[in-house]
């Protein structure tokens, strides 16, 4: 089930982001603002999860399997990122890419 696979990836991604938020301790306001941006990205993953649960989903859409496979690779890449405050910008950039990919999946499966 493609929908289930997409959801499993999004759950894993949000877990990883949450762990990152829990683990790092910002030392100054710049770092706090960066963390704030990462928390906003976490909320976008929550929004994406709600959308995938709610949307009509054509499991047989052409090209869907390829996009889901890309999503799985990005989940793996997210887990490989460094886990210090200096790595937060990299996390934000990768989550933005993941969100774009999920929008493509929803457009394809929902269209």
């Amino acid at each position, binding site marked *: 089930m493609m929908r289930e696979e997409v959801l499993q990836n999004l759950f894993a991604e949000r877990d990883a982001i949450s762990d990152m938020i*829990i683990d790092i301790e910002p030392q100054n306001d710049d770092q*706090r603002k960066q963390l704030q941006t990462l928390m906003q990205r976490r909320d*976008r993953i929550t*929004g994406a999860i709600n959308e995938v*649960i709610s949307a009509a989903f054509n499991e047989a859409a052409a090209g869907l399997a390829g996009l889901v496979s890309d999503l799985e690779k990005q989940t793996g890449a997210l887990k490989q990122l460094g886990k210090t405050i200096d790595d937060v910008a990299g996390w934000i950039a990768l989550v933005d890419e993941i969100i774009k990919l999920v929008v493509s999946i929803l457009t394809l499966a929902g269209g």
Partner: protein
Amino acid sequence: MKTTKAVLAHVLIFMTLSVLAGCASQSPYLKASGDFATAVDNSMSTLRGMKDLNSQLCQQRARLDYLFHRLEQRKLPESDKPVYWAAYATKFDYQVPQSDGTFKNQNWKTHCTQIHTADAIVDKALVGLSAYASALKKISTEDFSGADVQSLANDANTLAGEIIAPSRATDIAKTLPNPLGQLAGALLKNYAGHKIAEVVGTADPDVTKILDGVGNYIDALLSEEKDAAGQMSEVLNAADEGLPRNSMEILQFFNLSSRWTDDLQAKMDAQQTLAAVLKKLQAAEAALATAGKQEKPDAAAELKTVLGNASVVIGDIEALNKAIQGKGGSNK
């Protein structure tokens, strides 16, 4: 002598009628229909006992979302004011990605209110299926007006008109009023004849649609519960990270986290059982309808499927009810 003959004749007639009645009650098709009806009725009662499942889950997810943000607030700039408990459902927006690259703000209250309406429609469908099951049970003994099912269909149609926000659960709920109305019509038309195979045959397409709809609804709920489980785990990790080294507080945290996790797991187990139960009812319904179309329904091989599935469903629902009662035993 005449009196003795008359008495004997009455006894003979009585015995013949008793044997016929016995045969009727032993009819394999009638027995399968009765067992199926019992399985449907028990399942729908259990499902109805869990009504508002989806909207409760929505509220639980909103609260967990609040808790995670609140626990991590200390790490954010002081200028970033928290959204407090009382305002969280209406003032906190989570962001939904759009196809044009923008994000639409949605608050939890709007989301959960729409879902609550969907729960109400699914509840009507469950009552409709219960009415169908009661009708099957009553068919050989009394008339059934079908009026209750008709009124349920009308209520469900009114509720469907109130759903605005698109969601899988609400879409599924919106498909239910139409089959409910058709089911009411089928029952009204066929009850007069008291021919159970005809009633099952006529109602089958609509009963199948309703069972499919309820099954899909339960599947959608399971996805949301998995999401809630993930959120809960994140909340507990966040709380654990800030926990002081005080033994009593650690024990309290352990107690609370064990309870929360066990409660959610019990709900997920119950819904997985219900999802499996619905699949068995779908198979039993199809087999009963197929058997009813055959020249000799009583000899149909499909009846074994009906009886087997009905028996498993009745057992599963009984076990599930015991598990639910056991869970809430302290409240009795």
